[in-house]
Every structure is written in C-alpha cells, then in structure tokens.
C-alpha cells in the first residue's frame, strides 16, 4: 500500500496544521511554516512507511518547522525603526492578544503540547507521536504550559486591577 495521493493528504490535513502553526508561530509566519512543512512532507512522501500515522507525521514536521522558525527568529537582528504597514488592531478587551503572546512565549515543547491539546483537541497518544515523546511527557508538558498560561493570565488581571482600568 502506498500513501494516499498527496492532494488528498494535503486537503485532509491543511486545516489542523494551519491552526497549529497559527497558534505556535503567529499569523505573520504561519504561511511560511505551513509551506515549509508540506514541502518537506512532499519530499519524503514516496519513502513513507506504509503503516505511518499520517496525522502525527505531518504534525511532527510542523512542530519541527515551528521550532526551527523560533530559533531563526531569535538570531535575526531587531530592526531599529520598524514602520508598521497598517494601524495596530484595537486591543481586545478579553485579553486574547496577551494570551496568544503568552502561548508563543512558552518553551517549544510546552507550547506545542498546549496547542495540540487545547487548540487541536488531540488525544495525548497523538501528541506524544507528534512531539516524539512518551504520552506521559506529553501530558506533563501540556500541564506545565497550561499552568504557566494561567499564572500569566492572573498576573495580567492583577495588573489591570492595580491600574484601576477595570
């Protein structure tokens, strides 16, 4: 048995992969990472083992691309004067912008585990396969990430109260 036609594979997984990348690398870089992910997959596709879990496989590649991307970004010099191309979006009152930033600030494994679990609703077995770790480690990373996000959220709320803005 060969893997399904790539067009079928792409159609079936494009939404979860995009969603995962949107959450891990953000809207500006999701497109690049998405293309890199599926091009890598296409290169390796004919050699794929027939019993491969395709969903876990593509998410593994996406996870790696997102991590590579984070490293590349860290090396990139920060522009001195950046002129925005459009006005900044109005801050959302429910704090989702801060939460998103907090998700992206998590260490790679925790970030990936949190997104796989709470954005993509994947079972821990699939998360473990995508991250290349045990199910237990996937659980621990999702838990640690989630706790950090909660703490960050509480910190933001405290700050808002202190500032008297609410």
């Amino acid at each position, binding site marked *: 048995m*060969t*893997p*399904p*036609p*790539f*067009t*079928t594979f*792409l*159609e079936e997984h*494009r*939404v979860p*992969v*995009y*969603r995962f990348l*949107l*959450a891990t690398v953000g809207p500006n870089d*999701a*497109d690049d990472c*998405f*293309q890199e992910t*599926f*091009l890598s997959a*296409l*290169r390796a*596709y*004919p050699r*794929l083992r027939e019993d491969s879990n395709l969903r876990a496989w593509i998410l593994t590649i996406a996870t790696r691309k997102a991590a590579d991307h984070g490293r590349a970004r860290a090396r990139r010099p920060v522009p001195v004067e950046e002129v925005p191309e459009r006005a900044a979006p109005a801050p959302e009152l*429910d704090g*989702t912008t801060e*939460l*998103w930033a907090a*998700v992206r600030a998590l260490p790679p494994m925790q970030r990936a585990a*949190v997104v796989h679990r*709470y*954005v993509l609703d994947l079972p821990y077995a699939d998360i473990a396969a995508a991250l290349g770790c045990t199910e237990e480690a996937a659980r621990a990373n999702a838990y640690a990430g*989630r706790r950090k*996000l*909660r703490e960050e*959220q509480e910190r933001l709320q405290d700050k808002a109260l202190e500032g008297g803005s609410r």
Partner: protein
Amino acid sequence: MSGRLSWMRRTDVEAASLRAARAVVDRAWASRLVDVAVTTVDSPVGSLLVAGTARGLVRLAYPDERSDLILEELAEALSPRVLEDPRTLDPVRRELEEYFEGHRTTFDLRIDWTLAPEGFSRRVLRETARIPFGSVSTYGQMAKRAGSPRAARAAGNALHDNPIPIVVPCHRVVPASGGIGKYGGSEWRKEFLLRLEGAIEETTDGAPLH
C-alpha cells in the same frame, strides 16, 4: 483556560489554509516535486478528469468513474506525489476545448503510455491513435495492425481499458457487423463523438455507418 484558547478555533483558517495550500502546489512545481498533475476539464460529455506526468498525458476519465479511486490508482501505479494543478495541464484543456468546438481534428499532445499494458494492448492503442478524425476502423483491423489478426476480441478488451479515451480515439473502432458497438465510457458518448466528427450522419438515430 481551554475555553480561552478555543478562540483560535474560530479564526478563519479554512480560507487561509487553502491559500497556503495553493502556494505549496506552486512551489512544489517549481521544485519539480510533483510527479502527477491532475485537473478537471468541462466538456459536452461530462466533466473530464485528466492527469499528466513529465512524459505527457497519462490518464483521462469520464465522471462515471469515482475520482478519489482514480487518484488512488494513479498514486499506486505512478507515484503518490499526485497534486491538483490546472496550469500544467492547460495545453490539454485547450486542445480538448478546441476539439469539442469543432476546431481541432488532431491532438498535438505528448502521451505517457505507462498505464497501457505493454505488448498487444499497447500496440492496439498506439495504432488506434493513428485512426484519422472522421473515419472508423474495426476491432479485427486493429488486431491485425497490432500483429495478431485473429485477436479481435482481445483488441476490444484493450480498447475498453484505454486509459486515455477521446485523445486515443477508441470511439473510432466499431464492429465489422455494423452499428457503433460498445464503449467503456457509455455508448451515448461514443455516438456523440462519432457524430461530432461526422463519422455518422447527424440525422440518423439507428446509427448505421455511412
């Protein structure tokens, strides 16, 4: 917290991921990572699925066949790197449109014969590709031209399994006993194509040949 994260699910990833997927196809072509291109072409005999490789047109299918199964067969027989790509197949679309508009009598497309079994079957199909527009031949004649004069029935089978109907004009092969005979893509299409080419009279409906 999981409720807060779920807002990302509401973001319109459908449209964004579709755009990104199209970009993947573009880049895949530029990097020569696509082995089989597929697209559909509208025609008076239904929406045609066409597939091409670097060697040429490899498959043409009528809508009676399930496209998902055809794609699976192509993945299995040729390569799983099957991608939807209308642009690469533009010449095929253009020539088919011209043919159905009555402006084209020969196809100038390269053919990839991989899906035609080597040997007698392929020889029959290659000979069939040489039958001129507007004329017909018989199963017996095709068998003879392919080197086995007594194998009319086998020639019929090879034509029935033609991977590239219309362009390899198996509709131009008819029984020696009269009538238009059978056709893998339903008889009404064979009749339509023969009428289009003027091989049978526009007005007759019993379809005697000439």
